[in-house]
């Protein structure tokens, strides 16, 4: 009997946290132990299947933070604790944690781009000695879009945290402006030895990379996480391919020096 890689496993929803009006975090009971930055394929029978990053994980459970944008994600948002959904994975190559050991690390995340790096940030929160220093640069459209508010407050106690929203908003006294405006502050001295992770919408990643490079971060020290349409997650359906690279297999995390040659 051949094992069927498309067969998902049922996972019970332990709890649901409403991060914003459109983003919910689902904690699922599962034995899956993902690497940082990997994703799973999530499905509801008769509705559909989609790739979703693991936004947090501990032995016995994983969390997925899912934005309501269409057919499947609408249905997912109707589910309640105790309901089942179906997952297979984990898939893809995540962040090369060893390359960040004892280094200064900057993580720049835009919007839902925070989900794929949250697990890594939480890991460093528990093992703060593993990197020399961690700076977080996070941007959201409005204060209402901010994800993981409790985590962010927690992270402030150990890391340098810079949280910004795109435009002035009533009741918001924090930073205002795009992430790119704050790259200079995040980089600081001795930038050439720092490691940088950038995750967000395509244009955000493009311009933020350029900005880090401008402030002397070598291209070799930057990593990005890609999003593409994916129908299988295992290198068969072809939707995620760029040149001779399958984003679901060789990514979603890529070194910048690889990513810059991935032209769609």
């Amino acid at each position, binding site marked *: 009997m051949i094992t069927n890689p498309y067969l998902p496993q049922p996972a019970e929803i332990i709890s649901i946290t409403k991060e914003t009006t459109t983003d919910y975090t689902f904690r699922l009971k599962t034995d899956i132990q993902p690497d940082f930055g990997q994703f799973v394929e999530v499905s509801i029978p008769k509705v559909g299947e989609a790739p979703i990053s693991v936004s947090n994980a501990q032995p016995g459970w994983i969390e997925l933070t899912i934005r309501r944008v269409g057919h499947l994600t609408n249905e997912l948002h109707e589910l309640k604790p105790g309901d089942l959904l179906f997952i297979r994975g984990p898939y893809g190559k995540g962040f090369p944690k060893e390359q960040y050991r004892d280094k200064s690390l900057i993580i720049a995340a835009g919007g839902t781009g925070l989900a794929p790096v949250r697990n890594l940030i939480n890991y460093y929160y528990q093992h703060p000695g593993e990197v020399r220093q961690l700076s977080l640069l996070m941007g959201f459209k409005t204060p209402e879009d901010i994800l993981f508010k409790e985590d962010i407050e927690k992270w402030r106690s150990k890391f340098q945290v810079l949280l910004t929203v795109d435009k002035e908003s009533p009741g918001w006294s924090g930073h205002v402006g795009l992430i790119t405006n704050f790259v200079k502050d995040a980089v600081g001295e001795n930038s050439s030895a720092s490691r940088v992770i950038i995750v967000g919408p395509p244009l955000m990643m493009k311009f933020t990379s350029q900005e880090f490079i401008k402030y002397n971060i070598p291209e070799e020290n930057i990593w990005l996480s890609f999003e593409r349409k994916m129908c299988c997650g295992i290198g068969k359906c072809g939707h995620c391919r760029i040149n001779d690279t399958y984003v679901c297999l060789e990514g979603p995390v890529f070194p910048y020096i690889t990513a810059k040659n991935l*032209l769609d």
Partner: protein
Amino acid sequence: MAYILTHAEFDTVLQRLKQDYILIGPVRKKNKGKFSDADLITYGQIESLSDLETNGKSQFSAKETIFPPSQTLFYFTEDEYREPKFEPQKRIVFLRACDFNAIKRLDLLFLENGQFVDAYYKRLREKTHFFVFGCEKSYENCFCVSTGTNQCEGYDAFLNFKGEKINLFPSEPFKRYFAGYEENEDILPQFIERNHIQVDIPEGLSTKIYDHPYWDQYGKRCIGCGRCNFSCPTCTCFTMQDIFYRDNKNAGERRRVWASCQVDGFTDMAGGHSYRKQQGERMRFKVMHKIHDFAKRFNMHMCVGCGRCDDVCPEYISFSQCISGLKGVVAHDN
């Protein structure tokens, strides 16, 4: 080593084979072709040699016998995933050398790309044996000699139709079906050696070619219908589809269906992002895969030169002309 049989004798062999295998091959359907008065040659089950259509190219390749256009992956009842209980019968598929070489490309993708084997593909593939028949002549738009896929090895049997006779080269395990006939020492399989069309796949292709104005002509002409992909023996892309049954909403299935990189929606993602919005960019994506990207990953070109993409394009876009033109562009730019 060959058996030289008459059609009637080979029919006897086919009847023996039918005890153990179902036979699948190109068959002619009257008046179902691209133009209403033309016939369509398509893959179907055959009972005897007279069903097998070897004169003319099939519109679709033998690919569908192991990678069907629509395939059910799971049946759903409430919250249960049930794999289709199907034990495919052992089959023999009759096909041409280009299409047999295409199967190698499918194998690389479905069995070897990434760490997982595609179970659905493997299940059909394992039960499938290939009888390759030589082409007596080259058909319209064929350029298999240029891609080196006019020849093949590793088949379960090879056939050359020679007027009244057929030269047959079965592999060892299939020789027992030829019991009672005599083997001739001197004959070798004959492959087609010339096409009307020759192409020279350019060396030195790279991403540098991506924004060349060369692709703009296709932006104007291609209507993004996807026929080139669906008829291609080496295209493997698919999309997942979940459905529920109209008469019982609690039951349904998950299918995979053939997808085309030339058709809108191939790269669409939530939030309105998509890539390669222009048909010219999609053409570039397809062409680069067939004659560059696939080979970078798997060490052989994807395109097997069957010319079907040209046969079916409603806009008369020619893949072989595209490659030849590209050669000129690369030569000029380097």
